[in-house]
């Protein structure tokens, strides 16, 4: 249920933005979810549905999923994250703290742990839509 904590963060951030932008109601929340963190979308959506209230009560959530793309800083090789190459405890550790990938993942070309997560790390808010206060 680590997903719950991330859902709370989304609710907090969306509420802050709605307040700043003078929205009386949030209708759509567009999220991007990176593969590296291996978030259970079902649990995450359930948590959001339980946490949405007030201005967010009727908001729809659109989630676009992004494959994790890693690029070696040493040799320049780029590759896609493949969780099947990790054992369960390694996958779980990366789920809790995605940067732990640097402990368990190596560049397939030169074995360096010094790589960049070019995309697909975790949860991002792309945009929110709503109705302005009169």
């Amino acid at each position, binding site marked *: 249920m680590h997903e*719950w904590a991330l859902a709370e963060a989304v609710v*907090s*951030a969306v509420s802050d933005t709605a307040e700043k932008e003078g929205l009386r109601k949030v209708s759509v929340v567009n999220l991007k979810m990176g593969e590296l963190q291996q978030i259970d979308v079902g649990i995450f959506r359930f948590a959001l549905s339980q946490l949405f209230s007030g201005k967010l009560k009727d908001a729809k959530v659109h989630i676009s999923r992004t494959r994790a793309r890693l690029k070696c800083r040493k040799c320049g090789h780029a590759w896609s994250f493949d969780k099947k190459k990790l054992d369960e405890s390694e996958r779980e*550790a990366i789920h*809790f*703290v995605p940067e732990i990938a640097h402990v368990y993942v190596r560049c397939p070309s030169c074995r360096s742990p*010094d790589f960049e997560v070019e995309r697909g*790390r975790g949860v991002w808010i792309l945009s929110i839509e709503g109705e302005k206060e009169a």
Partner: protein
Amino acid sequence: MSDPRTAIIGERLKTVKSVIAVSSGKGGVGKSFVASVLALSLARKGCAVGFLDLDFTSPSSHVILDVGKQLPKEEKGLVPPIVHGLRYMSVVYYSAGRATPLRGSEATDVLVELLAVTKWGKLDYLVLDMPPGLGDVTLDLLRFVGGVKFLVVTTPSKLAFETVRKLLDLLKEAKVAVLGVVENMKADDSTWIKGQVERMGIPYLGTIPYDSKIEENIGDIEGLLRTRFGEATSELSGKIEASP
């Protein structure tokens, strides 16, 4: 596009009365020992204390405190296990004792992630074991954790204090609260560090003697608290409790 995690950090720390960053400009001055034994001493005085090791690439507090194999529980976030009376959190739970090579931006992400998902509950103190210097974690802490107070550790060395002075200057400029400076590994009667600290208008919190016994008490909580280091750090915890 925005990162939602930073929006929840204030909420997560709302139940924490005081966040204390044990910091220094230099490595090797005993930050982790001071942070660990300070946290234990505060807990022994009946305070609710959390401990977060922010030295992600070179953590050592888990060895000092012999934290064992309990893992954080998943309860709508991560609830750190209670270790010797402390709610203890570190990346070591996830790194399996292996090297954790991280660049600055990656350390920032670890910091934000841990602050966003860790559920501390009610604490009197959250003690942070900081990495040395003025790098990303120190700057990000100032960015994301309002109200953090710094306890700065130096040794009697002029070289150590040269870096500590820069940290103190930065904190002063950023208007960050400094509880004071503690002089660790003290082996003589010199008052040079005390004079330098007081000239900067910062509280000098006293000395912790050089203690050759501390190494043999690593991982032995009662033994650590009984050393001269432990006794001096316990005195320091009294001063921290008395600080505004």
